[in-house]
Structures are given as C-alpha cells and as structure tokens.
C-alpha cells in the first residue's frame, strides 16, 4: 500500500476528475475535470517507469554506473500530454462558441439536444 503510494495518488486524481464531471455544472469546470483525469493518467504513466535511485536515460555527461529509469513511459507521457493539450483546446473552443450562442455555460441550460 505505502509502497506504491504514487499510483494511489494518481488514481485519486482520476476519481476526483470523474467526480468533477458528474457533479460540476459549469462547462469550463467540466473541461477542468477532464484535465484532472488526464493529469492523473499522465502521472500514473510516468511513475510506472521510475527505478529507485535512477537517473534520466540520457548519456550526455551522465554519471557512470547509476541505473537509468525506463524511457518508454516518458515518451508515452509526452505523447499523451500533447494529446491532452489538443483535447482541452478544442473543448474550450466549443465552450466559447456555446457561450456566444446561448449566453450561459450552465450544463443544465445547454440542453437544446435532448430526447
């Protein structure tokens, strides 16, 4: 349990994001909730590759003999961070246009499409 506390923290972040999506009514806060889940998953990914006492996997002027952390999770995290940025930007653009049309960001009032 205490051994992989970082993973637990990441999952708590994800759960908080889910709760935000369910409970908050402001569209911008919903975008923030998605961002919370993204950050939780990214932290989870990058924490998976950590080796105790490891150094970055870069040979430029690297101290000899130290173990290197796994490079793959860092690459995956970079990819997913950029994807998260793209998603957030697109959702914020949609929120801007919705506000321009409806004059509100309340999810309970943005329900023209129902039934």
């Amino acid at each position, binding site marked *: 349990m205490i051994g992989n506390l970082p993973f637990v923290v990441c999952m708590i972040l*994800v759960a908080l994001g889910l709760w935000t*999506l369910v409970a908050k009514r402001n*569209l911008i806060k*919903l975008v923030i909730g*998605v961002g919370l*889940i*993204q950050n939780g*998953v990214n932290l*989870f*990914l990058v924490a*998976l590759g950590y080796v105790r006492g490891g150094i970055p996997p870069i040979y430029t002027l690297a101290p000899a003999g130290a173990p290197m952390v*796994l490079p*793959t*999770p860092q690459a*995956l995290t970079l*990819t*997913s961070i950029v*994807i998260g940025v*793209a*998603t957030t930007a*697109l*959702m914020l653009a*949609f*929120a801007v*246009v*919705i506000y321009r*049309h*409806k004059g509100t960001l309340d999810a309970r009032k*943005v329900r*023209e*499409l129902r*039934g």
Partner: protein
Amino acid sequence: MGTHAPILAIAVPLLGGFATPLVARISRVLRDFWVFAIALFVAVCVGFVAAQVFAHGVTVYVLGGRTPQETLAPGAFPIRIMLTVDGMSAFMGLIAGLLALVAFPFALRFIPEEEGKTLSFTLSLLLLAGIVGLAYTGDLFNFFVFLEVTSIAACGLIGFRTWTSRAPEAAFKTMLLYALSGLFFLMAVAFLYGEYGALNLAFLSRQLRGSALDRVALALFLSGLLLKVAAAPLHFWAPDAYGEAPAAKTLLLVVNTQVSLYGLWRILFTLYGGVLDAGVGWLVVAMGLLTMVVAAVMAVGQQDLGRLVAYGAVSQIGYMMLGVGVGLVTLAGRPDYALVALKGGVFHMLNDALTVGLLFLCVGAVEWVRGTRDLGELGGLGHGLPEVALFFLLASLALAGIPPLNGFASKILIYHGSFQLSPILTAVAVLASILLLAVFARAFQGVFLGPRVEVKPELPWSFLIPMIVSAVGIVVLGLVPGFFLEQVVTPAAEALWRGRHLYLAAVLGG
C-alpha cells in the same frame, strides 16, 4: 508498393491532410482533385492489403525495422511498433475505403466554399487516416493515439456548423465523452504496461494470465470502448453527433464508430481471447439488445429527419453487438451456430455502412434542396426528387431488414445464430426491426409523399453518383449474399473466431 501498402494507406492521408491547406492556397480546383485522389489512393491501398491478407494470411509491417515483414524469433521481444493486419482488420479497412470513396465526392459540392471547405477536407483526411490506422495497428499505445486522432478530427467535423447553436453543443458533449473513453483506454494500457512492460498487442496477449490486474485493465478497456461505440446506455452522444454533423461527414463518423467496435472485438477476441469468461459476452449481448430497442423507440418520437436517421444508425450497432456477442458468450465451446451469428454480426458492419451511408446521403440531399430537416415542414419531395425518394426507400427497407436487401441477409444470420443461444434475443431483435420499419415508413411518407412541392436546384452528379454506388451495393449484397459472405466476411469472422493463434504466430513467430 506491395510490401508498403499497409503503411501507405495510413501515412499518405496523413501527409495529404497536412498538405491540404497549402494546396488550397495554390488553387481550389487542385485541392478538390488532391483530396479525391488521396481518398482513391487509400481505397486502392486497402483493397490491395485486403487481397494480400485474404490470400496469404496475416500481414505484419514493422515500422523502422530492418525489413518490413520481420517476424520475431520465438521468445524474442517486440521492440518497435508493428502494424498487424489480419482478416478482420483488412475487412474494416475495406469498409473505410469504400465509404471514403462515397463520402468525399459527395462533400465536393455539399460543403459550400465560404463555409471553410478546406478545413473540413483537412479534418476528413485526418479522420480517414486515423480510421485506417486504428484498423491496422498492432500496438496498444498506437491504438490509443489513433483513437484520439479520430476523436478530435470527428469532433471538429461535428462542430462544423458553428453558426447554429446546436452543432457546438453536440460537439462539446461528444468531445467530452470521447476524451473520457480515450483516457480510460490509456489507463488500461498503462496497467498492462506496468504489469508486463510491453505494449505490443500480440505479445501481451501471450502474456496475459487472467490475474486481477488483467481484469482491471479489461474493465477499463470495456468501459472506454463501449462509450466510443455508442452502446446503450452510453449512446447519448451518437444521435447528437450524427444529427448535427454535415451529412457528407456523418458517413465518416459512422465508420469511426464501427472501427471502434472493431477495436472492441480486437481487444476481446485477440488480447483477452485466452482468458475471457462468458460474463463479458453476456454484457455485450445485453447492451446490444438495449441499444437496438432504446434507439428504435427513441426514433419514433423524433421531429428532425437527421436525428431520426441517427437513431436508426445507433440501433444497427446493437445488431452487430448481438451477433458478435453470441460468439463471445460461447467462446469456450465454439459451437457452429455461434460462428453463424458472428458472421452475421461482421457482415452487418458492411451492410450498415452502406445502408446508413445512403440514408445520410439522402438526408443531405433533402437538406441541400429544402434547407431544413424538420419533419413538420418537409413533404412532397417525391415529385421533385424521385431518385432520392427511391434511394431513401431502398435504404430504409434494407435498414429494417426487408428481403431481398442486404440488411436481411446479415440479420437472418444473426437471428438464426442467436436463436440457438436463447430465443428471447431473437424476439427482441425482430421487434426492434419492426419498430424501425414503422419509423422509416413514417419518415418516408412524411418527407417524400404528399402534394407536389417545387424544388429549385437540380441535384448535381456529385450527389447522385455516390448514392447510385451505395444503392447498387445494397442490392447486389442482398441478391448474392453467399458470394460476399464466402469471399470477404468469412475470413474476417474466422480471424476473430479461430485466428488468434495465427495473429500471435505472425507477430511473435513459433
């Protein structure tokens, strides 16, 4: 060309999408030719790959490897990203290429120039590339990346009509749920990586032992992908998205949903094929039944033609889930009737693509002519647009599974297969079909029958030719179903049914 066909089918539309804004700066006519040529090229490539795979079995392409097709020695470790194309992937690629050939010419005249035609074509090419990549990739994280490519490109297209207040709303909801599905998929991939330190689908499939972490990852995979394929009660984004996107782009959204469904089958049959229990199959079957019934009933009360057709399209997803779910339930015993249902479900993907595609093309034509999709205002278009009326009737009959059209050919396989598992499944499926028939008869009568209404603009050939292609496909698939079942569907269904070890052997050797 031969060995590089799988990657060309993905990379060329990517490059084309990047270059489309530059080409549009030179000339708009050149841009139209450019886009259409790339769609044609993709169709040729996927056809080539499909012929190759159906003839010689699973094709592997190692990105950046010393040779394109290097299968690892037994016990070796997959280092690089591999494209792994088996029968099902090739079948999915065929559907994508076919609908690209239908959708892109239709969009040439459908999207007016002053509404951002260039950007919409850019996103369409990226979406097509993402769909083909999703179908061909054999690497879990690469699968996630293409999932996000399709999500973002699709949502950009859904929000295309930014001057209406409905389109951005639909796009926001869809984008939120798409982001959720992608993130949970990524979490599942992270769990598998943390447990096995690998990302290759075949390698992981050989590693999986059904431990607790494997099942956590399976649950995350299922939740994410079921959200992406619009299975009830997670289907709420689908009617909004299909209904609000421009009709020419809705075809690509339909293929996007289907390729997500393919991803679900890939995860369940290939990745977890060794450790799956029947509960997951029953879940898929139950959600499939719920999807077809809920969507069909909701279609009854619709006031908007596009939204009505969208609900019809959602209900078809339920049939695929039912057909393949029967195979999932009985995966342990592998009886013959389950293979029949599986074939029906896979065959229904192709039929659904053609049928729903033609329906949305008709919706687009009606909207292009009358400028509205409100069923309260439409009517009497049958005199002015007889061909559109004929196509709409044909497609709606095929959607409702009326013989001798293609929808019946696949649905009877699903019915006969699922009947032996439990007659209740078949009863519910038939009931949903009857509901759909009633709904579409109402829509047809309301839109096309009645006193004559003058329509001013004449339909251009760029509208009629894709419709004719789809209609011919519907009729031919209905009249000679056995041929296509034998040539195209059976390899795909077999790849899911018994092809798991072939898939693994093609990648890992041994």
